[in-house]
């Protein structure tokens, strides 16, 4: 399955994947927040949020801002 992660295509071997599994496979541990197809997903729902082909996942963290 192919998924857009932070604007880049990532290939996953599995056909079904939860958001939690996707984040684990990419190595994310903590200190971030996630939007799926431009909609915020709260931390508590990662394990019950299914990922589909061509979904867009954004993973953000704190940076400098004005």
């Amino acid at each position: 399955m192919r998924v857009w992660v932070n604007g880049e295509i990532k290939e996953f071997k599995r056909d079904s994947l939860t958001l939690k599994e996707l984040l684990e496979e990419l190595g994310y541990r903590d200190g971030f927040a996630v939007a799926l197809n431009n909609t915020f997903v709260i931390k508590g729902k990662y394990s019950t949020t299914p990922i589909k082909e061509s979904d867009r996942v954004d993973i953000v963290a704190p940076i400098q801002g004005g």
Partner: protein
Amino acid sequence: MDSWKLEDREFNSRLLIGSALYPSPQIMQDAIRASGSQIVTVALRRQSATNLNSGNSFWELIKELNITVLPNTAGCHTAKEAITTAMMAREIFETNWIKLEVIGNQYNLQPDPFELVEATRVLIKEGFRVLPYMSDDLVLAQKLADLGCKTLMPWGSPIGSGRGLMNPYNLKTIRKQFPNLNLIVDAGIGKPSDAILAMELGYDGVLLNSAVALAQEPIKMAKAFKYAVLAGRLGFKAGVMQKRDMASPSTPTVGTPFWHQFSK
């Protein structure tokens, strides 16, 4: 001490400061400390797992400051993007405060008033304390106030331009029309005298970033702004004298030696 209440918190400093564009992380931290500011703005951007797992040193430096964090939605161009960013910020920064920015024009980074109002409507319903970055438009101010904003942040001039207060008349009008809201001039401040002017207009605070971060000596400039904001506030509170068309001597004239009547 001139303490004030912004949203649900008390502060002593009326200077809000950004965390971007400093020559180094250490100068950022030192400059923010030197400014005496108790509120710092931060943002969110995409991060790879590799970067994140090696430690977010920026975020560690901000936490060490132990001051209030005000996340922004910089870079958002629609209400939807801003709402999603605000929700991600609330989770990461554990605050319901949001500096709501929705950009409408890429040339001058002017806020989009229509998207801003829509995002404000949704976020206030979601329990956020929305501090909107807005143009200096009186009607827009009214719409945002009607939605429940307790703080408005009109621009002085475009972000990062350092052009100061382009339209003091508009800023003054918003101040007069909304005596009970917290008003903060956000963006465009270039030099300490711009901050003084904003405070003399009766604004409750000033938010700036580039003016300090891009100064030749950011730490020194941070101190300059600390005192500028204090001076402007004190000046406003003290009440400025009336302007006069004619000169009026400040030294008493009675008893002046060599005095004589001018013929004209």
